[in-house]
């Protein structure tokens, strides 16, 4: 590539990067600015006056620590639960021959086509009958067992399909049962796929918005996305410094999960049969 083409390419990439980077940068830097500076134009790239008022008020206006904890533990339970359910099902669909496996797999795949938005009205009624409205059960049970986990099962199946037979044969000769083969041989090899599933699932649970506003009514039970929209003043106008501080804080766990599982995520995608 010629030097001129390279320069043009870098220029283009930098220009395109602006709308991707600026909002996040602006969110984080503004969260430590006083309100007056957030609203001033032109925006200062770094805060001239440093203020943590926004961060303090976040916790005074709402039970924000509780809401933070709600989101974190729900996302964690959903992620671990989905990994278990999808690894078991994906493994069986890929490697165990049992009558009805194909029809059952097609049946499970329909979950991909029917987003939970379609079924939100009856789901509300079902959880209402079970006395689970304003609890976290709907936000835990539906993602782990229902439609959202189907993509995870599909990814796990694609991964297990590619495992060489010899590995399992060796285990069988050693007298291992099915579960032992799954747990001690197949699952440890599936770490990249599990990493991809973990990130997908964590992000999905962390960002869930329709379900919490439908199922939860008490502020102490709220999850973060729902809580973020509640930082408004007496006139219904948004309190920008508080909102941006709260918003910045919601990015932290996702960032941590992403940094931990990033390599596995990319590898996982490359190995899941999504590759052309």
């Amino acid at each position, binding site marked *: 590539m010629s030097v001129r083409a390279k320069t043009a390419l870098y220029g283009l990439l930098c220009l395109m990067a602006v709308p991707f980077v600026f909002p996040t940068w602006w969110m984080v830097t503004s969260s430590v600015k006083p309100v007056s500076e957030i609203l001033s134009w032109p925006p200062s790239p770094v805060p001239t006056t440093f203020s943590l008022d926004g961060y303090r008020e976040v916790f005074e206006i709402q039970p924000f620590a509780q809401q933070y904890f709600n989101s974190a533990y729900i996302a964690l339970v959903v992620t671990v639960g989905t990994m278990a359910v999808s690894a078991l099902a994906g493994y069986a669909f890929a490697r165990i021959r049992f009558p009805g496996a194909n029809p059952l797999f097609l049946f499970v795949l329909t979950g991909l086509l029917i987003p939970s938005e379609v079924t939100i*009205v009856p789901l509300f009624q079902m959880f209402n009958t079970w006395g689970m409205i304003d609890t976290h059960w709907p936000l835990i049970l539906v993602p782990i067992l229902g439609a959202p986990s189907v993509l995870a099962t599909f990814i796990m199946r694609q991964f297990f399909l590619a495992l060489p037979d010899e590995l399992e044969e060796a285990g069988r000769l050693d007298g291992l049962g099915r579960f032992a083969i799954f747990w001690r041989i197949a699952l440890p090899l599936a770490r990249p796929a599990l990493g991809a599933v973990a990130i997908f699932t964590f992000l999905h649970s962390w960002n869930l918005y329709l379900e919490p506003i439908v199922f939860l009514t008490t502020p102490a039970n709220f999850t973060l996305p729902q809580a973020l929209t509640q930082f408004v003043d007496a006139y219904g106008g948004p309190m920008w410094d508080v909102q941006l501080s709260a918003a910045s804080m919601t990015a932290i766990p996702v960032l941590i999960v992403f940094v931990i599982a990033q390599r596995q995520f990319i590898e996982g995608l490359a190995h899941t049969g999504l590759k052309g």
Partner: protein
Amino acid sequence: MSSAEVPKSAFWTTRRRDRLAGYLFVAPQVAGIVVFVLVPLVLIFYYSLYDWNVLAGTFTFTGMSNYRDLVADPRLPSVLRTTAFFCGGLVLLNMALALFLAVLLNQRLHGTAVFRTIFFSPVVVSLVAWTIVWQFLLQDDGGINGALSAVGADGPNWLRGDVTALVSVIVLQVIKNVGLNMVLFLAALQGVPAQLYEAARLDGASAWTRFRRITVPMISPTILLASIITVVGSLQIFAQIAVLTQGGPGTSTTVLVYYLYQQAFQFHDFGYGATLSVLLFLIVLVLTVIQWQTRRRWVEYER
């Protein structure tokens, strides 16, 4: 099968135990789909035949009445138009940009890893947080118009105009999520043999021809999968609308899922909400069938 393997009892042969393991392994997922997908799916058809106001406590069989209301609903054409425009715009823009970025970043070039991270990074920002930031930027006296006035242009009040509000939601959603498809496409591009490009270059094929005749066909299965996921995902958009525009101005950003939410959970009309759910289900079904049917035409090969 090795002769060393002796079944523990006459009935529980290795084969039978293995089958049982198969059923037990898939049981949680299958049961979950029955309870949380199949049963509710049947229920939306059932509920749609009733006049059901949860607040008033009415639950009366009215047959096709909700469907007659649906056909006569003066807001529905606008809602469907908005949904179609939204999905079409979002999917086209997302796929085109993701492919463009993936091809750019697949070049042997220093710093591509940095740019990959940059274009992927909005995926990591929580959705409502991202929407709140854009809400600030898109205000009449917000950052976007500030930047425009700095170069002498006068920006509209983005979230208050019919078309600009819809376009804004599409653009901020594309920027938020294009990184996912970009990563998928990048993974696919790594699998395209470099010799194909070398041969084409020797034959004098232009960059565009190489892209059209090699890149696109070679990664078409990934494009199909990404497009199905993106289409279904775009129909599910809710938080962005609820936070940014509440469906407004008028009904110009009221997509089907948001309308369904309004009818069922704000106006407590579960019967009509269920009827709209039936409509949403049929739309998802038709779109997926069309995509699946057309796959032979443009997907080069399949596993």
